[in-house]
């Protein structure tokens, strides 16, 4: 019954958020039915739109893990964007600096991106453990620092002199671009994201480390009195979370942009927050939720053109869904329907 509550509440919140957005559209004089029709058409209506959606889902899967994993330890880390952009820069610079290694070069870029992300979000965990700094605020502020650093790197230190209109790092050689997965026009980033979600699920739910992390998240005092190394667990899992976000940056550079540049700061880190909360920080549930949200993003262009809506429309939709999710969190355990006592004769 607790499981069904874990599915039903976010689902209700999603529907409530979409309905509220429908009211918003009506106030603007637009038809919500048309809107959701276009969303379906552009996000999920054809093989092409599915491919577009899944390509966008790849970084979102990884960005959502950067929120969901620390959340299991009771930490609200919302600055995954910082790890994404710096991971992307590290991967771009590494790829451009070590040419001619074939698949080994891609692996090297992935390691560089993941390591950078791990250090960045690991630093958030370190400040939390050693100095008691609030991780929500520090990670958010560090995201701004990261974006500034990225701009600095691509505009000066690592700028490719040939990139005139859009300052970028040196372009990656063709062998360092992530290929499409077999049978579809979706790059391997999706595969990486899916594997990361499955591995994260196994680590959190099936290993003793994950269980120890959940005890820390459940009650840090109980973890301490059991002598669990709470500090090391927080450091390790924030670093793991950051490595996934860094990997998202690498995927974007290698599969989409071909070099690191300002396009890395596309807000995936922030959409990841919404996805992780909708998925209730369950790594497997992230997969369908990320695909859904990716579909919304994929349809953004179409609904703007067809319904003449401003480009912030999708942000409004995401915001409404997020508020609905936060409200639903306060309702956990409030419904008799979901309590085992309602169904079992004690």
């Amino acid at each position, binding site marked *: 019954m607790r499981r069904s509550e874990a599915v039903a509440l976010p689902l209700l919140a999603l529907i409530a958020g979409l309905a509220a957005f429908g009211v918003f559209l009506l106030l603007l004089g637009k038809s919500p039915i048309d809107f959701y029709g276009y969303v379906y058409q552009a996000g999920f209506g054809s093989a092409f739109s599915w491919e577009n959606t899944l390509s966008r889902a790849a970084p979102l899967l990884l960005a959502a893990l950067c929120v969901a994993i620390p959340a299991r330890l009771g930490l609200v880390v919302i600055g995954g964007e910082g790890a994404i952009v710096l991971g992307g820069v590290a991967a771009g610079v590494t790829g451009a600096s070590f040419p001619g290694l074939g698949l080994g070069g891609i692996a090297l870029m992935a390691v560089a991106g993941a390591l950078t992300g791990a250090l960045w979000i690991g630093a958030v965990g370190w400040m939390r453990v050693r100095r008691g700094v609030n991780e929500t605020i520090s990670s958010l502020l560090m995201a701004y620092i990261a974006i500034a650093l990225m701009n600095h790197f691509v505009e000066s230190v690592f700028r490719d002199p040939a990139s005139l209109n859009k300052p970028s790092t040196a372009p990656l050689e063709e062998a360092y671009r992530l290929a499409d997965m077999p049978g579809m026009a979706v790059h391997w980033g999706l595969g990486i994201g899916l594997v990361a979600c499955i591995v994260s699920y196994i680590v959190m739910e099936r290993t*003793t480390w994950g269980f120890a992390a959940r005890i820390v998240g*459940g009650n840090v005092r109980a973890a301490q*009195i*059991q*002598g669990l*190394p709470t500090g090391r667990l927080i450091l390790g899992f924030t670093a793991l979370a950051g490595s996934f976000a860094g990997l998202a940056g690498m995927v974007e550079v290698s599969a989409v942009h071909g070099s690191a540049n300002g396009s890395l700061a596309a807000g995936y880190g922030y959409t990841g927050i919404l996805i992780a909360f909708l998925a209730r920080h369950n790594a497997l549930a992230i997969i369908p939720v990320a695909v859904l949200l990716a579909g919304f993003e994929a349809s953004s262009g179409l609904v703007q053109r067809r319904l003449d809506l401003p480009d912030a429309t999708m942000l409004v939709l995401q915001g409404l869904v997020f508020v609905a999710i936060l409200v639903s969190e306060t309702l956990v355990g409030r419904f008799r329907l979901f309590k085992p006592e309602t169904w079992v004769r004690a």
Partner: protein
Amino acid sequence: MTALAPIGVETVGMTMKFGAFVALDNVSIQVRPGTFHALLGENGAGKSTLVKCMMGFYHPTSGQLIVGDREVSIDDPRAAHAHGLGMVYQHFTLVPSLTGAENLVINRPDVPAVIDWADERGALADFMATMPFAVPLDVPVSRLSAGEKQKLELLKQLYLGRKFLILDEPTSVLTPAEADELLGMVRQMTVQAGLTVLMITHKFREVTAYADEVSVLRRGRYVGGGKVAELSHADMAALMIGEKTLSQKAARSGVPGDAVLSLRGVQAVDRSGLKQISLDSLDVRAGEIVGVAGVSGNGQTELMELLAGQRPYQAGAIAVKGHAYDASRTQARAANVRYLPEEPLHNACAPRMSVAQNMAFRDFDEDAQGKPRFWLDTGAMRAKARELVAAYNVKTTSIDSPIAALSGGNVQRAVLARELTGPVDLLVISNPCFGLDFSAVAEIRARIMAARNSGTAVLLISEDLDEILELSDRVLVMSEGRIAFETPIGAADIGEIGQHMAGHA
């Protein structure tokens, strides 16, 4: 100094029931006008309930309140204020970001929509001139020391025109010097300015030094009192603690063995950061229960934290079985050390995790041979939980229910089941029966005694003196962060224990 006409307050047959629980049973006390009256009693004796009835926070089940010479009915705190009754709480109720002057003015019931600060400042200066002490009124309250804040609380009550003040353990957050200063002033105001004061306390020293009269409550009843000058500390201790019989309900067996836990010269800072915890020597031997008694807030929580590795110490050594002990999981496991912290749901469980998961906290990461595990064995976890739920009679709908859904007694049973399985050499316990019903209490105490009889060294930290006396082989008393007194249970003198608990060395 303006001389107020002092008012007295009297309760007549005050009874307060919460469901079937009788918190106050026919309590009549008289606080005569212009006196400093102390209300003495152990934790849970009904002191707070009584003053909350006086202040209108609670509506007594029966009984009358007489203010001055008229019977009054007080429905809410505002009515109490109208009769001149005011209360100073244990913890501060000032707004930290506002200055003293602002705190005083905003608390007035008739504060105007637009405040003329120049005018108010003038009025405040006049008011302060009549007070026997000063507090800086122009700095934010957050910059004041604890003693100054408590003085400001007092000033606030006087500024609001209260003539009868109830002080609820006003010195618990103050250093001894600050406490003396504050109580000295209060005393002076009762003598010179016609203030009447009723102070809740459990410190005998403060009663003898400052109060005129005392009333003692025990288990919701008025058990005695009178003029402080005519009562000795021993008399007050006897009233407060009562005629306790040293019942040895649980059978004891075996003789104590070697020391399992030893503390030597441990120095640490307490929670407030103001006082020092200083434990010269503490040993707990195999097969004995050492009870640590004391009024809450005298370092017992810190002792538990020190032993659990949650509080750093500046000097000294903690050893278990002769080896330095840092309370890590490895060491606790190697030395078979287990903890039962107070409020188990809050300190030993993850409330939203299931009963089965909570019961696995201690050994989920090792297999039957004690080797570290990487994969979680949920099947074994659930099987073990089922076994323990049956063995310890934990009442739960399912082992998959969140542990927060269980009653307090069943949470404690689940935690006991987790901590008492396997070999236990040292058991550190804090207030194990707090807030539990009768049957759960008996069962949990029997389990603790059984552990002792099988050779476990038990350190029992408890605010319930009955529990200490029932279970312990040796009794220690903590006061002001030190072990103030030690006695074997056979030679225990209750009056003496009570005096040391009350801070009279």
